[in-house]
């Protein structure tokens, strides 16, 4: 892809443009989620959304300012506590209590952050670790309110009282949408600030505090604001978790979870909102998936530790960062074409499989869709995973594959067939996507592994067929779209 010298690089988008993808993606997720997921997975993904919000604050502090805060999850516990206490004690509406909890957590966040203004990053990490540990002990002793009187609001003898869901979102499905909307709001606000003055101030502070002060940027205010806002969103998330089950567990906010959340936010990617969603998925959805397949959760923890090590050694961009690297030069026409064709293929196969009685429509549709996501959004997914183990390994593997492909292509030419220089890559990708996504799908939906595998490979074949057949007709259309929307993601880090 040669760079088009006549077109200027698009500057980092206007705030609205940068927030749009978040709103659109999460809006779609909110819409489709309850329809595609079973009850158990719906609740899991609601928790994922709450955790993603907390991870967002961790990413804000670490990615924008380089400050490690291991206390964010504890602040969520604080917010949840306040929310529960207010609802039990004063029968406030859910949203009011939620925001009040968030405000209290914001104040706590500010208190934790104030010493940070004078502190080297390492001491801040240790301080926040101590705060998280102290909060864990306090929660263990005081417990979460469950309907009793007194300051702590704990019932001594008798039935625990659960809080009601907000009146606009009583059912599980509605609550999922409610939480995802709050997530979109929180992440959108963070992204908005990144695109405007606070973001620039944070970037300058990160680069050099002395320069920031010299330029007239108040280091104190912007750092304090980051902590306050981070605390606010964390407290919000705590209240949302409380609303999910109607109560909070004493053991629900341990230090280990704080540490794990930080670790997985780094693995997911701190510079990007997509990384934050990955973090939520890794903390909650992946262990649930592994449980389904009988893998011990502790091995997952061990793997996460390893993943954190690798991420930090390789430069902290995380999964989302590696994705953004691939994504930078993708063209709008490919996206539009991909969405349309995959939508058609998924719906088509969904109908066919339902008619044949092999699997439910929702399951087939979702599996087909996930296969797209992998192929469209993560080109060369096996190479991406190899890159996890080191740039050198990835490069060497690519060299070997290129050499083999060349030999194969020459062999094809000698036979008189059309050579495909990326045949091996494609085949490996197909194999991998098929096996992996089928494994995920057979755990999440009740679709048999073989059926899922067949579905995925048929979908990929259909897509390839569509591409080859439609190429001459679609080329002018592609060029027009690309001219209208050049390099949409060039500014992503």
């Amino acid at each position, binding site marked *: 892809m040669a760079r088009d010298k006549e077109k200027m690089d698009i500057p980092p988008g206007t705030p609205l443009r940068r927030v749009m993808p978040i709103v659109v993606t999460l809006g779609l997720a909110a819409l489709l989620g309850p329809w595609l997921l079973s009850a158990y997975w719906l609740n899991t993904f609601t928790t994922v959304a709450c955790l993603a919000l907390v991870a967002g604050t961790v990413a804000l502090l670490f990615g924008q300012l*380089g400050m*490690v805060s291991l206390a964010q999850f504890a602040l969520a516990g604080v917010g949840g506590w306040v929310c529960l206490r207010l609802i039990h004690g004063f029968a406030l509406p859910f949203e009011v209590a939620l925001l009040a909890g968030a405000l209290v957590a914001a104040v706590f966040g500010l208190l934790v952050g104030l*010493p940070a*203004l*004078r*502190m*080297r*990053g*390492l*001491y801040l*990490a*240790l*301080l926040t*670790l*101590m*705060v998280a*540990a*102290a909060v864990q*002990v*306090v929660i*263990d*002793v005081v417990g979460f309110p469950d309907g009793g009187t007194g300051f702590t609001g704990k019932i001594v003898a008798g039935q625990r009282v659960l809080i009601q869901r907000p009146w606009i979102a009583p059912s599980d499905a509605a609550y999922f949408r409610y939480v995802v909307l709050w997530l979109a709001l929180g992440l959108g606000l963070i992204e908005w600030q990144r695109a405007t003055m606070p973001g620039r101030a944070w970037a300058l502070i990160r680069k*050099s*505090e*002395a320069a920031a*002060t010299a330029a007239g940027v108040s*280091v104190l205010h912007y750092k304090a604001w980051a902590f306050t806002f981070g605390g606010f969103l964390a407290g919000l998330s705590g209240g949302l978790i409380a609303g999910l089950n109607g109560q909070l567990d004493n053991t629900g906010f341990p*230090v*280990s979870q704080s*540490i*794990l959340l*930080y*670790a997985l936010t*780094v693995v997911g990617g701190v510079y990007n909102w997509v990384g934050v969603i990955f973090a939520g998925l890794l903390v909650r959805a992946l262990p649930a998936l592994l449980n389904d397949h009988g893998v*011990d959760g*502790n*091995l*997952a*923890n*061990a*793997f*996460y*530790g*390893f*993943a*954190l*090590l690798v991420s*930090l*050694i390789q430069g*902290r961009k995380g999964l989302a960062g590696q994705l953004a690297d691939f994504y930078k030069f993708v063209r709008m026409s490919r996206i539009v074409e991909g969405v349309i064709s995959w939508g058609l293929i998924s719906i088509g196969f969904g109908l066919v499989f339902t008619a044949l009685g092999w699997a439910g429509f929702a399951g087939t549709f979702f599996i087909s869709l996930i296969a797209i996501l992998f192929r469209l959004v993560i080109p060369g997914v096996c190479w991406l995973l190899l890159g996890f183990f080191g740039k050198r390994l990835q490069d060497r593997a690519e060299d070997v594959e290129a050499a083999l492909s060349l030999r194969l292509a020459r062999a094809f030419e000698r036979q008189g067939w059309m050579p495909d220089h990326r045949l091996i890559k494609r085949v490996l990708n197909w194999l991998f996507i098929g096996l992996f996504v089928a494994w995920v799908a057979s755990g999440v939906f009740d679709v048999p592994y073989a059926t899922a595998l067949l579905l995925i490979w048929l979908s990929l074949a259909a897509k390839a067929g569509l591409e080859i057949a439609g190429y001459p007709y679609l080329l002018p259309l592609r060029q027009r779209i690309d001219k209208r929307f050049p390099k949409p993601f060039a500014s992503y880090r």
Partner: protein
Amino acid sequence: MDQFLPFLVVGVSVGAVYALSGVGLVVLYRASGVVNFSYGALGGLAAMLCWQIIDLEYADWLGWVAGIGAATLLSWAYGRFIAPSLTHQDKVVRAMATLGFALLIMGISQWYWGDEPRRLVLPTDSGGLEFDGRRLISYTRLLALGLAAGLTLAMLWLLAKTPLGLRMRALQSNRVLSALLGVRVKRVDTWAWVIAGVFAGITGLFMGNMVRLNPIVLTFLVIPAMASAVVGRLMSLPVTVLGGLLIGVTETLTALVPEISRYGSSAAFLVAILAILWQQRKGIGLSRDNSHLD
């Protein structure tokens, strides 16, 4: 006074183990600039391995050697192969990398050994100093106190009087200049990690005996150890020891006051938070390399 004494004894001995861990952390930090979050995890592994070997009816001393040896080996491996890839990054990142290592070891230990209640019994548990016909302090706790004092003095001697210690202090002052002067950075670093590993193994065995033999609990006992290291400003070994003892004593003495007894385990964190705030009480100024406010 009578009711204080048992608590005091327990507090001082647990505090001594915290102090010992703190000393190991501080020595490693002084030599390599890394705050080692995996300290507790290595200790936990040492304790579990020791228990496993004793459980398999092998000799006791084999268990201790294997446990301490495993901790030392893993620590050496980290320092030799993983830490060098990170030296160009800042201190926070290097500390977080050890966190990853801790999760890795903790995950594997917890997966293999799980949550069953176990006890690590050391032969010194059975005897003790008697006073007035009552047991005052068991030999294990006495040993912990003795080791805390002895190993701290040994480390002080190492840093002050030996060539290795001199090189470690040189590395702490200025890594690049030391390398230019001919200090073999990787070798000195590796020795620091080996020493840290030995400390982790020893303290792990003691914690496993005195606190609880559970991989997760032992991993997170690194937090009180870090608290005592923080009290010593990550620099001074004697103050670290004092910090550890203070934390241990505070933890157990809170049991005497009914209102706050249940908050006893937060003593470490409170002491650390107060210490951090006290140490950072001076005003904001420019750091030495003019890059940030310190």
